[in-house]
Each structure stands twice: as C-alpha cells, then as structure tokens.
C-alpha cells in the first residue's frame, strides 16, 4: 500500500463552500419568473373521489394552472407495480395522496387556490393494519388487487425439514418494526422549466437524475427520457428518501401546462406525510441448531407493510427476507414473504434497504439462541460467520470478508468477556453484525437500462491543469464524489485541490444509475478509475510529443509530467494540455459483477459484499425503563478505506442515525393518520443524544474494488439497533425488545415479561 492519496484522511472536496453557506440547494436555486407549485393532498386515508371542482381556483388572479385527474391523462406509474397516478383518480389511498396541484405567482396565491378547490369524497373504511388487510372481506386498497397482497413468495432451499427434525435445539421469536422517516434536514423540492421546443429542464435534490426520467417523468408525461434534462442540486441529506421524488413530476407537469418555470418545494410536514419512509415489517423466525452452536436451518415468515403504493417495496421485502442468511453459513432455509397494501403512507427505502429491519430481528434472535445454548453471543457468531470464498445458500459469492476481525476488535475493545460476566444489574453490553451489497443487479433491471448495472466516467484536464470529473453517479452529501476525486488524483498524480466534480446532469454527463445500494464507491469508483487511467495515458502521450521523450519514460507527480531518469526535465500538466491544443480527456466504463436473481431469488446479486459489527454498552433504569447508550464500539470492512475522514463520518453518522431509529423515531400512524408531522413530534437524535463512538476499519482488500474498496454507507447503520437491544437484554437479565422503538414503556413491559 504505497498510495499517496488513497487511505489518508481528507476533507470532502466541497467542504469550503458548504461551511460558508455558499452551496446552492434546490430552494436557493434562482429561476427567474418561476411560479410556485403546491399540491392539494388527501385528508382521508381512504375515500372515493366523486368530483373535483377546480373552477374557482382557476379563476383566482395569479393562478396559472390547476392540475387534477380532470385534465391529466390516466398514466399509472411505479417500479414494480404501476399502481400510482400523478393525481388520484377514482380513490385517495392515504393521507397525503396528491389530488390536485396549482402553479401561481406566489406562495400566498397558491395556498389560496388550493383552498378554493372543492373535492367531494365518499369516505371509505380504512384498512391500516396489515393483518386486518389480509382478513377475508377486508376493504381493498386497490380494487383490482384481491386480498391486498402486493407481492408474495415462498422459497425452500436445502434440506429444511431434516434440519429441524434432526436439530438439538430450536428457537422461535417474533419481531415488529416501525414506520420511520429518512428525516433529512432539507425539505424535498424540485424545479422545472418547459421550453418552447417541448423539452423540459428539471432540477432537484435527487439521488438519481437518470432514473427519475425513465421510471417516473417520461412514462407519466408521455415523453421520451431524452426530452428531459435533469440536473442535481446538492441534496441536504437523502438516505434513500430522495430516489423516488414525486415533486419532480409535479414541477414538470405544472411547468408544461403553464409553459413557465415552476418551483415545487415541499414543507417538512409534507415530507413527513407524503414521501416514502422506511418499511415497517413483522418477522417470525425459527431456527434449528446443533449442540455445538452450528446453525442447521431457519424458517422466516414476513408480513411487510407496503402502504398505499408499491414502489421498490417488493425488493425491500426480498432484502429483509434473504439478507441475513448470507452472513452465516446457513445450510437450509424456508422463507415466506407477503407484502400488504394498506391505507398508510407508501413505505420505501431508507439507508439499509430493509437490512436494518432484518438485522434487528435476526441478530436479536441470535442472542436468545446463545442464551438458550449456553454460549457467548460473540462466540456463536464467530462459529457461524461466512468467509471469503464461500458461496451462500442463496448463491452469494463472498469475494472478501473481514467480519470476524471486526467482531474480535469489538470484543477486545469493549472488554467483552469481563463485562458479559457482570450483566443483569441495569448495565450491559451487546453486539450484532451484518452483511450488505455493494450495488444490486436487480435494480439495474427494475430501474436501469438493462442487466449490466453500469457506470461511466469522464475525466477532463484543461490547460490550467484543472481536472473535472463527470460521473452519472451522485453525491448525497456523504462525500461520494470526493471519493472519486481522490481515486482519480491517486491515478493521475495531480493534487486533489485541482479536482472538481459537478453535480450530476443528464444534459452532458455519461450515464450512471445513481446513489443507492452502497454502489458508488465500487461501481462509480471503478468507472472513474478507468477514466483517470485513460486520461493519464493520453496526458503522457501528449507530453511525450511535447517533450520529445517516450511516454514510458515519463511519470506524473504533483501535477507535473517528469522524465523518470531526468527529474529536471518536466512540464506542468496544464502546459501539456495547452500544447496539445485544448482539453485532454479520458473515459471509463465499468459493469458490475454478479447476477440478476432467478425467479426463486437464487443468484449472486452484487459484485461483492461489505460487513460490520457494532457493539453497544447501555444503562437501563429498571424503575423507569429509560435506556442510555453509554458507548458504541464498532468495526467495519469496507474493503479498503479511500478517504479515512469520510469513512469515519459514514460510520459515526450511520451509528447515530441507527440509534435514533432504534430509540426515538416513529411516524406513529393511527388508523392511517401520522402523528409525526414536524421535528418536535418526529424526534431524531440531537447532539445531546450522541454517544461516544470508538471504531476502526478492517480492510479485506476486495479483488473487484477500486484499490480494494467496496460500499460502506449501509453497513454503518444496519447492526446498531440489534446491538442496543442485545445490550438491554444483557443489562436487564433477559428483557427482549420485540417491537421497535425501544421506548421506556416497552422496556418495562419486557422486564416484566422476563420476570415471569
């Protein structure tokens, strides 16, 4: 490891503009003469629409256009099921569903116009609970979907019946997770500008500028993807929530109808009630074990809450169902999943993509198993972890793996054995592990152009020696494009201060799927690395001509091309480019490895996999049930750290976000109506809640990753919930939290249950 840039701590490349408030977020975008767009949302969880009368709103001075089902085509969209319309047609299906939208000269006029729209509803019985929705005769959320089942599957793999018949011990548990929001601080918004040639420019805080065109804008608006130029504004946090952004559609439709630019900014309340929060899920687990602690098989049954519309929900349920089977050597499994429509906000993807929920359930269950078998929970895991070279039950190929090292680090740092021996007096320790994809081939088919999960990069060097990287991937604030700059800087021998990575733009940048599934460092990073290598070759060829020295006798360092043998013979990179007559470019394209899963969900969905282990120490007030996280200790295997400062930030941010999910968050739906509508009802962790975090990286040097790197964003959040719950179990002598979040009431109930 002789790299000059890779592996060291660096600030993100756009840090200076961010700390000085110069970054242009979507709400700061200047769009002259832009109208204000706003939506009228359903006040009912479930109602038939008898009539929408927009005439009074249309007559209001200052109103440019009012859109509803009356004047928009019936063009349903959706990634897995085409079950959602731009504007509700026969029914509204959740509180927050878009019924109409207006574009007006200012916000006050737009608000008044919304108040003038008359909607006649016939209120229908609400079905908010997934188990009630599965009962015969339950109200149907979508009249055409019998039984409210949006998706279901049943997989048996390996000798599952024998595994249970011949087991020395079996265990069973049930777990329930809650509806929780991404709660980025920047409210979601988009802007659009219709052009007289019929094309539309769109700007927004988007995770994927390319895909929003193909899965939402083009099909609904009856246009081709190329008719849209979509440009990202830097998102003020996203965490999965800004992949599926209907505000883009609202802005584009309003702009086309008004033939004027439109800005459509959501309020925080709209964000909380009408985006796509983390899916709630009900998980039943049974597992079969040998006396020595070897896992023999598991049965998993899942009921997942889809909410009103199904975006990526089937894939999320699949992730919840299968993911943890690949972390341990699992000889046999039987998995059933049912995804259920309800009259609640549609659920969706948040950092972890179902793996937070799955890991909470399975890793909590494992500690119950360890207790039952009389084994240490860390030892039980160490005995069963997958290893490099393994092919899992479901076909996952483990190309690199340092999870055992991560666990041993946590055990060592937390003084695990001594602390475990002392549990049960209101203080305890727990740990949990996870596996996560680095990109997922399935998305390439569902969302992308084909089954290649591609990424492309262009690296351009100008006559001042400055370098711009064009990548279709995107930065969500996590520093993804900084990682690209550091990789290219390493390859090219040009200082990173000279690099710029503009926000993604379909107008001129090469294709990229975007930021999700922890895919950018591996897939985007490889594409940019290839582009940088190409640019470096082109620079050396140009320099060879200018300096009259063969290219293979030249090198680039500190932004200068130097003769290896005669270091005084040198030329600045910018001068080389100038003499070559302009910009020197390099191009790179990388296609992800792995397979699209077959119908039985068998195959290797990702090029490679990342791992982590989180440990937590908690104090539990046995009288009040209040849990305090005293410290967190964790180890991560991201293959190789590219930017140490950025990687640490991912871990610390993921841990606190996960702790926040575990302990205080929840949209708390009651009959389809959400209680969390602002940041004093929807609580997220503040500076007062942040625990001390000690952590390190265990670099497995992945064979496919750029410099050995793979994804980190999601392994940073997945295990912490279970680690906390396992620590509570240890601290209380057996209080098992089976329903999230870990509130004092639930802890007291669990203490009481454990005492019985």
């Amino acid at each position, binding site marked *: 490891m002789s790299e000059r840039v890779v592996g060291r*701590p660096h*600030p*993100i490349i*756009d*840090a*200076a*503009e*961010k*700390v*000085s*408030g*110069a*970054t*242009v*977020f979507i*709400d*700061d975008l200047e769009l002259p003469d832009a109208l204000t767009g706003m939506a009228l949302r359903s006040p009912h969880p479930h109602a038939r629409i008898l009539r929408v009368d927009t005439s009074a709103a249309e007559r209001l001075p200052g109103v440019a256009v009012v859109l509803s089902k009356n004047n928009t085509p019936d063009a349903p969209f959706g990634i897995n099921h085409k079950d959602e319309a731009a504007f509700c047609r026969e029914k509204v299906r959740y509180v927050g569903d878009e019924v109409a939208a207006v574009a007006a000269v200012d916000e006050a006029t737009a608000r008044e116009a919304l108040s003038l729209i008359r909607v006649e509803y016939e209120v229908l019985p609400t079905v908010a609970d997934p188990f009630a929705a599965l009962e015969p005769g339950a109200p149907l959320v979508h009249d055409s979907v019998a039984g409210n089942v949006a998706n279901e599957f049943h997989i048996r793999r390996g000798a599952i019946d024998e595994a249970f018949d011949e087991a020395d011990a079996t265990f069973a548990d049930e777990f329930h997770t809650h509806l929780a929001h991404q*709660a*980025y*601080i*920047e*409210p979601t918004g988009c802007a659009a500008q219709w052009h007289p040639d019929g094309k539309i420019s769109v700007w927004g805080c988007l995770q994927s500028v390319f895909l929003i065109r193909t899965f939402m804008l083009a099909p609904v608006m009856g246009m081709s993807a190329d008719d849209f130029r979509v440009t990202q504004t*830097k*998102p*003020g*946090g*996203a*965490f999965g929530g800004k992949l599926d952004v209907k505000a883009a559609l609202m802005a584009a439709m309003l702009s086309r109808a008004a033939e004027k630019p439109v800005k459509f900014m959501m*309020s*925080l309340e709209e964000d909380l009630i009408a985006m796509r929060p983390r899916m709630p899920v009900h998980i039943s687990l049974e597992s079969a074990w040998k006396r020595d602690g070897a896992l023999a098989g598991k049965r998993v049954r899942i009921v997942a809450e889809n909410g009103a519309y199904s975006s990526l929900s089937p894939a999320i349920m699949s992730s919840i169902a299968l993911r943890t089977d690949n972390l341990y050597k699992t000889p046999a499994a039987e998995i059933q999943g049912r995804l259920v429509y309800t009259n609640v906000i549609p659920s969706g993807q948040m950092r972890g993509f179902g793996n937070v929920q799955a890991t909470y359930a399975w890793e909590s269950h494992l500690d119950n198993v360890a207790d039952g078998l009389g084994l240490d929970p860390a030892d039980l895991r160490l005995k069963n972890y997958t290893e490099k070279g393994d092919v899992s039950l479901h076909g996952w190929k483990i190309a690199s793996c340092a999870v055992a090292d991560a666990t041993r680090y946590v055990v060592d740092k937390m003084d695990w054995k001594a602390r475990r021996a002392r549990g049960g007096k209101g203080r305890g320790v727990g740990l949990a592990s996870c596996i996560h994809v680095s990109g997922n081939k399935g998305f390439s088919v569902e969302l992308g152009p084909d089954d290649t999960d591609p990424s492309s990069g262009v690296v351009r060097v100008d006559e001042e020696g400055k370098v711009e990287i064009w990548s279709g991937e995107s930065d*969500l*604030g*996590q*520093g993804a494009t900084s990682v690209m700059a550091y990789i290219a800087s390493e390859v090219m021998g040009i200082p990173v201060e000279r690099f710029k990575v503009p926000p993604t733009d379909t107008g001129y940048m090469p294709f990229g799927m975007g930021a999700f599934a922890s895919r950018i460092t591996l897939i985007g990073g490889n594409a940019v690395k290839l582009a940088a290598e190409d640019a470096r070759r082109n620079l050396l060829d140009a320099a060879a001509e200018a300096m009259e020295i063969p290219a293979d006798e030249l090198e680039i360092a500190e932004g200068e091309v130097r003769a290896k043998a005669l270091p005084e013979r040198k030329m600045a990179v910018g001068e080389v480019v100038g003499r070559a007559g302009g910009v020197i470019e390099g191009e790179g394209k990388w296609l992800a490895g792995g397979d699209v899963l077959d119908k039985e969900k068998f195959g290797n969905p990702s090029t490679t996999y990342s791992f982590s282990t989180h440990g937590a120490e908690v104090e539990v007030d046995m009288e009040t049930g209040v849990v305090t996280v005293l410290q967190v200790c964790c180890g991560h295997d991201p293959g190789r750290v590219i930017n140490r*400062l*950025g990687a*640490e*930030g991912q*871990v*610390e*941010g*993921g*841990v*606190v*976000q996960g702790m926040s999910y575990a302990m205080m968050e929840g949209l708390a739906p009651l009959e389809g109506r959400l209680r969390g509508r*602002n*940041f*004093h009802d929807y609580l*997220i*962790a*503040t*500076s*007062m809640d*942040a625990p*001390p*975090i000690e952590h390190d990286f265990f670099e497995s040097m992945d064979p496919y990753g750029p410099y050995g790197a793979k994804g980190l964003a999601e392994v940073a959040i997945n295990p912490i919930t279970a680690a906390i719950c396992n620590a509570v179990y240890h601290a209380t002598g057996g209080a098992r939290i089976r329903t999230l979040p870990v509130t004092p009431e639930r802890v007291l109930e669990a203490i009481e249950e454990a005492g019985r």
Partner: protein
Amino acid sequence: MSTYEIKFSVNGNDESLAVRGDETLLRALRRVGYVEVKLSCEGGDCGACAVLLDGVAVNACLVFAAQADGAEITTVRGIGTEDDLHPVQEQLIEKGGVQCGFCTPGIVVSAKALLDENAAPSREDIQRGLAGNLCRCTGYKKIFEAVSAAARQISEGGGS
C-alpha cells in the same frame, strides 16, 4: 395584514424592506437574497436558520422580521466566507464535521455564539451549545471535535 417599513443590517450591509406583520425573519432574509439562512422546519426545532441577532443566536423562523427592525444580523457568511474562513469553519472542514452541508450554516452560527461566551468549552458544553441544531449526517462527533479545535485555535491567536 399591516406592512411595516423596517431597516436592519445584515453582515454589515444596510437593508430596507417592507414586511408583512406575519413574515418571519427567515422568510424576509431569504427573500432579499440571504439564502445561506436555511429553511427547514419553520418551527424552531432544527436550527438550520440560526443567525446572530445583535450577537445572540436565534432561530430566524421564530422571530418576526418586524421585530428585527434596527438590529444587527449576522449570518454564516458574516462569520466567514470561502476566502476568509472563521476558525469554526476551518475546523469543520479539517475534522470532517460537514457532510451534506444543509445544517452547517446554523451549526457555524451556534458554535460561534458558544465560543463568544465560552472560550474553552468542554464536550458537554459543546453538546449543550449545539442542542438546537439537528444534523442527520455526521453523528455529531466530528462537529464536537471541530468546535473544540476551533476554541484552541482562537485561544492560540488564530483569529476569531
């Protein structure tokens, strides 16, 4: 609703504007171009719109613009710009205390206000000083480290 003719200074620039009685300082500042003051919760929960009002950190969404008549207002850009960064900003960069950057203008304002009052804050002081600023990206740890380092930098004469 009545309108008021008000004057205040923002980062040393004199501004005169007409505001409605119900217009918040946040909305008024953004309307006249100070978009570095971020709009998020508009309920005093997140701190993204924090500014110094006559030297005191406030959430601009909880102050009516008319109440700020005659005041001296400082936004993050009055504390430091890219070419002339305040130690808090320098250290947020160096320690990695910034990711998406949306909460950062408010963090800088609150940290500046804290250090103006307490030149050598403990970790607990910093936690309390930033308790009104939500950050969803960083987990706060690197922000604490940055504020701590900024305090040291200032006390060693590295500017204020």
